[in-house]
């Protein structure tokens, strides 16, 4: 197991990079939120891996907090998307750059 830790870190680096690429590339706000979730999960994987490497439970405790913050972020983000889509159906991230109706 110990020899797999560098591979875990590499996998989370790859997931983070893919998520960042999607966030920059896609224009659908829903898909952008999914890409943010992808990046958060990559960071979670890194936290758990480092927690095991250093034999420290804080690595798992902080993942718990990241999960909660991710849930709150999704709830508020989806609320904003619903509110915007009610005024401008099919709005992309470019259309809502002014942040007003």
């Amino acid at each position: 197991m110990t020899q797999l830790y560098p591979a875990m870190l590499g996998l989370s680096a790859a997931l983070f990079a893919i998520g960042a690429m999607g966030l920059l590339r896609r224009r659908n706000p829903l898909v952008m939120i999914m890409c943010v979730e992808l990046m958060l999960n990559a960071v979670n994987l890194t936290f758990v891996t480092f927690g095991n490497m250093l034999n420290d439970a804080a690595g798992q405790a902080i993942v718990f907090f990241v999960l909660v913050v991710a849930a709150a972020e999704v709830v508020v983000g989806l609320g904003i998307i619903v509110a915007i889509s009610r005024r401008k159906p099919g709005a992309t991230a470019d259309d809502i750059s002014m942040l007003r109706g």
Partner: protein
Amino acid sequence: MVNMIVFLVCAIICILGATGVVFSRNPVHSALSLVATLFGIAVLFVQMAAQFLAAVQVIVYTGAIVVLILFVIMLLGVDKEEDIDDEPLAGQRVSAYLVAGVTIVGLVVLLGLAGFNDPNNERRGLGVATADLVTGDKSVTAPLSTSMATTGRGDVVENADPDNIKTLGRLLFTKYVFAFEVTGLLLTIAVVGAVVMARRPTDLVAPPEEPASMEDDFMADVEAESSGAH
């Protein structure tokens, strides 16, 4: 050996799911690919003896967050395909690939510099001082279970103690209790914010019919009926 196979399968699922999220034209397919990635990460959590986090990952992420995203997709009717080759902002795609490439190369180079690949390197990782501070018995928080068990196949199972969740719970309610309370406050604020945000604004709602006029119509009907009867 078993660990390696499990890791490889999960890594392939994770990477394929992630590329599916980014490159699917249909948002529903993106959400389902996200589920695949989250499940792969949950299995990796189990592999690293973080059973509680694996369960929470499946319940919260795939059970709540992705379902919420799917609800919004269905609610808004935006499950139409998006032309992802359309590029209104010149150079957006190229810069996205560039940022992704720089990110992954930089992170891998950092990993290489940190020397995690060399198990004999005593100074690997965060350096001796930091490692002494945060590792094991001298941990500033709490050590994960240090019991080492060896399975019959020769694999060393670290943290084989299933009471890992006890350590985590004790940590959350002692050292991180303030952060825990703030987290509860954050969730409350998020719920209130979501309700306020998603509420139908009053200027877009059709004004409700006047009860008085309804009553008038009703009375008119009654009078008409009664006059007809006479």
